[in-house]
Each structure stands twice: as structure tokens, then as C-alpha cells.
């Protein structure tokens, strides 16, 4: 069982910048997930002729990846409006490929010039939990009093290489729809995203009257110790990450009122995640609204956890739960209270955002309404 150090500060989110296939900013994304309107379309960015699937959720006029990341950093930084920048670490999540270093260098140079930040501190490349891990580490740094503020950013634009690799692994939905936890689901669909958040000490935010969008109440990370890429079917390790997040916050499972699931649409991974939710929430699972907003904005890989954190923060703020789109019918192996129609109004105090990745990596972020 985890033994968490007593917190010296409470980490809160004071700035948020988002680009997704749903549009620029949080509002179009919130509207799309609130109504369950998927952003998938036929891919024309590159040739998909030799692939089994031809759909993804893409920005209409994609900028260079570094520019997309810089845009959302500017948006988040303007909203938080801190007085000093140079001591703020920048944790950046990117796909590991031949361009990773060049993108990180460009983001680092531009943020130094434009915002006086000290450059990129660290690049997280750990697949679908990369940005979730970065958020957990940022919260840990603030909570322990090591830093008063941390900037976390992530970006992923769908390219021909990743698309071809996911196609080769038969990970993409053959029918062109991402149907998390649904009967008849056939896989995931990729999506573009760039997201940035400013996470800082609540006391520092209050002192300068900064807007508090949400509080990062808890976080947890764990590993399946099961397989190179397949999830452990019993969901035990993902449940441990969720339980670590709850324990850190001192929050009981019954106090959680919404789960933004990782829900990739993978037959195996969704079943394992459902098992993890039953382990964590027990009888409360039957009354716990769950959805995977990937069914609307697609799977943004290294940026996915940060994109879904943005969706979760928005849901807590608006009182409108994201819809689990693409639903065909129940999978008896999942047994969740899915949000199937929108708008669905609810005002939970706490929401949990989960993600899992290759290597059996799991992250859980517990978000509290401000």
C-alpha cells in the first residue's frame, strides 16, 4: 500500500490551453463531448490507401507540432498570469520519434524568448500515460513544496508513421468508430491534440487572485507487471493507481461522482479498465457515471491524459458530463453506468481521470471542483 508524504501545499490548475479536432480552446471541446458529437473524419493529411482504417480526429489546418504546443502554452500562461516565469519548470509530453528532440528544442527556445521560461525541463515519452505522469509529477513537486508552479504541456499530431504502426498492430477501429466499453467495439481511432496546464500552489494562486479552475486532489501511478503491451485482465494495477489517488486525497470511493475513463475502444483494454473500476468502487460502480471522451476527440497518445484532464476540469465546472459516444449495446463484461446521452447534468465534487499504456503503465488523476 502506498505511504504518501504529508502535503505542504495543495496543487491547483490556474491556466488551461487546448487545441483539438473539436476546435481551438476548451469551449468547442466541451460542447462536443457534452453532446457526444464525434470529430472523426476521413484522413486526407496523408495516404491511408494501404490501411484497414481511414478515419481520425484531426485539426483542419494543422500547424507544426511545436507551434501547436506553443499556442496552448501561451493560452494557459495568459490565463494563469503569474508574476514570475524563469523558475517555472516546463514538463513536456511528446511521442518518441526522430523529431522529438527538434520539437522540444523549438518549444524550449520559443518559451524562453516569449515568456521568459527557463526552457523544457524534461520530455515525457511514455506513450498514453506520458502526460498523465507529467501531471502527477508536477502535482508532487508542488505538493511537496519543491516548486510553487509547474507548467505541463503535451502535443500529438497524427502522422503517417504512427497511423501505419497502429494499423499494423490491428489497434485501429475497423468500422471507423471508437466505441468504448460497447459491444462490437473493434479498436481505437487517433486524434490530434495540444494541451497545456499551469499547476501551482493554491496559496500562491490565492495571493495574486488567480482563477482556480480545479484542484489536483490526488494522483497515482502503477505498473501491471504483466506484458509488453497487453493490459492485465484483472485490472488490479490500474485499481491500485486509482486507490493511490483516492488515498492521497483522503477521498472515499463514494465521493467520486464521475470517471473519465481511458476507454480506448480496445476489446481487451476496456474490459480490464472496467474490472479496475469494479475493484476500486465496488457497489458504488453501479451508480458512478463513466465515459471515455476519446469516443469524441480520439486517442491523442502522449497528449491524451492532458486532453482528458482538460475535459474533466470542464465537466466539473459546467456540470455537464461527457458522453460515451459510439455506443451499440452493453458488453456484459464491462457493466458500467455509462453516460450515453447528453447533455447529462451532474455536479460531482470529485472526478477521476484514468489512463493506461504500453508496458502496463497506469496513471490516475483525481480532480476536485474549485
Amino acid at each position: 500500500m502506498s505511504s504518501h508524504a504529508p502535503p505542504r501545499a495543495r496543487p491547483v490548475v490556474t491556466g488551461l490551453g487546448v487545441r483539438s479536432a473539436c476546435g481551438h480552446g476548451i469551449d468547442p471541446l466541451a460542447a462536443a463531448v457534452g453532446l457526444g458529437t464525434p470529430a472523426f473524419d476521413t484522413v486526407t493529411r496523408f495516404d491511408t490507401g494501404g490501411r484497414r482504417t481511414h478515419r481520425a480526429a484531426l485539426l483542419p489546418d494543422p500547424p507544426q507540432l511545436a507551434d501547436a504546443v506553443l499556442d496552448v502554452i501561451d493560452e494557459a500562461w495568459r490565463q494563469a498570469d503569474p508574476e514570475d516565469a524563469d523558475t517555472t519548470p516546463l514538463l513536456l509530453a511528446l511521442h518518441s520519434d526522430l523529431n522529438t528532440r527538434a520539437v522540444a528544442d523549438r518549444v524550449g527556445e520559443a518559451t524562453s524568448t516569449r515568456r521568459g521560461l527557463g526552457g523544457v525541463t524534461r520530455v515525457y515519452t511514455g506513450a498514453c500515460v506520458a502526460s498523465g505522469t507529467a501531471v502527477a509529477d508536477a502535482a508532487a513537486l508542488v505538493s511537496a513544496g519543491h516548486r510553487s508552479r509547474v507548467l505541463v504541456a503535451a502535443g500529438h499530431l497524427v502522422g503517417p508513421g504512427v497511423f501505419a504502426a497502429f494499423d499494423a498492430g490491428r489497434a485501429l477501429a475497423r468500422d471507423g468508430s471508437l466505441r468504448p466499453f460497447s459491444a462490437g467495439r473493434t479498436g481505437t481511432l487517433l486524434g490530434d491534440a495540444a494541451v497545456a496546464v499551469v499547476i501551482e500552489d493554491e496559496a500562491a494562486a490565492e495571493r495574486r487572485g488567480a482563477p482556480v479552475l480545479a484542484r489536483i486532489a490526488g494522483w497515482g501511478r502503477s505498473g501491471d507487471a504483466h506484458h509488453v503491451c497487453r493490459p492485465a485482465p484483472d485490472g488490479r494495477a490500474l485499481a491500485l493507481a486509482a486507490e493511490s489517488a483516492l488515498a492521497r486525497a483522503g477521498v472515499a470511493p463514494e465521493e467520486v461522482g464521475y470517471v473519465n475513463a481511458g476507454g480506448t475502444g480496445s476489446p481487451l483494454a476496456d474490459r480490464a479498465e472496467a474490472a479496475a473500476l469494479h475493484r476500486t468502487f465496488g457497489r458504488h460502480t453501479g451508480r458512478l457515471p463513466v465515459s471515455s471522451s476519446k469516443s469524441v476527440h480520439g486517442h491523442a497518445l502522449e497528449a491524451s491524459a492532458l486532453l482528458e484532464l482538460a475535459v474533466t476540469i470542464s465537466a466539473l465546472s459546467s456540470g455537464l458530463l461527457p458522453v460515451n459516444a459510439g455506443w451499440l449495446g452493453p458488453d456484459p463484461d464491462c457493466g458500467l453506468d455509462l453516460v450515453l446521452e447528453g447533455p447529462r447534468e451532474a455536479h460531482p465534487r470529485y472526478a477521476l481521470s484514468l489512463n493506461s499504456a504500453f508496458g502496463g503503465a497506469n496513471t490516475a488523476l483525481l480532480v476536485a471542483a474549485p
Partner: protein
Amino acid sequence: MTTATAVRVLARGGWPEPGDTELPPLAGFTASSFSPLVAVAAERCLRTHLGPDRPVPPAPTRTALLLASSSGDRATARAIDTAAASGGRVPPLLFFQSNPNAVLGHLAARWQLTGPVVAVAPTTPAVPGELPVDALELAALLLADGDADQVLVISAEQTEDRRCPDRAVAALLARA
């Protein structure tokens, strides 16, 4: 970033070590030296800590895996890009190893390591044969934050240059 948590080294391993010639292959991984490189350094470290006669897998431990690599798996990335550009099919094994987490999953399953699984690219290169300072700081943060009792840090750099061999170093860390 300073996290001010003292750590101690329980064991070390690396590649190459004196007498090493050919990197041992790793079943299930192809077309690149990166995952075998990570695996051999990690396994040497874990075997040193476990002792030569104890069976694998050992009992599960809350050990985090932290892979730090500025290069990443360049050979796999290049093979995927080349296949995609030709319009042909990417070999399915390349999908599985397309992310540095994959070899960490292999190690976690074989050695029953149930802690966080983390992959990073340090922005400041490590001194050859040493662990990057940033990776040590992140390991200290993971230990202090409570999701792991130990951290296996692996630093691996793939050069794609015959004159300059791939190098990896691993260390198993715990709180001092």
C-alpha cells in the same frame, strides 16, 4: 529541479562491460538494438541485486521503472517511417516496440516490478557511463512521493554509428 530526497544505490549494471562483444537478442523485439540494450543493462542490475542463484521471477516488489534516453529508439522510428512512406505494411512487431514503454513492460513482467512505468528524454545529455542528473532527481521524487519503494533507472543511448557503440547503464535505487 531539486527534490532533496537522498537515495542509495542497491545495485548497478550496464552495457558494454569488459568482455562484451555482441548485444544479446531479445525475443519479441526486432530491427533495432534499443530494447535489447535496455534489457541487458536492467537485467544485469537486477540480477546483481537478487543474487546469482535466486530464481526469476522473484516475489513482486513496488519497483518503478524509469527509462531515460535522449536518443530514443531511432532505428525502430526510422523503420516505421520508411515502411509508412512506401505505403507498405509496417511489420506488426514494430507497433509493439514503437514506444520505449514496451521493453519496460517486458522487464516488469519478467521481474515482477509493480511500480510506476516512466519513460523520459533528458534535455541535458548524461556523462557517458553515468545516469542523467534529471533522471536521478525524478527517481528521488518517485521515491518520496510514495508510489514506489525502489526505482530501477536505466539510461540508454542508441548511436546508429558503428564507430560509437550503443551504451546503457542501470541502477536500482532506494531511499537512503
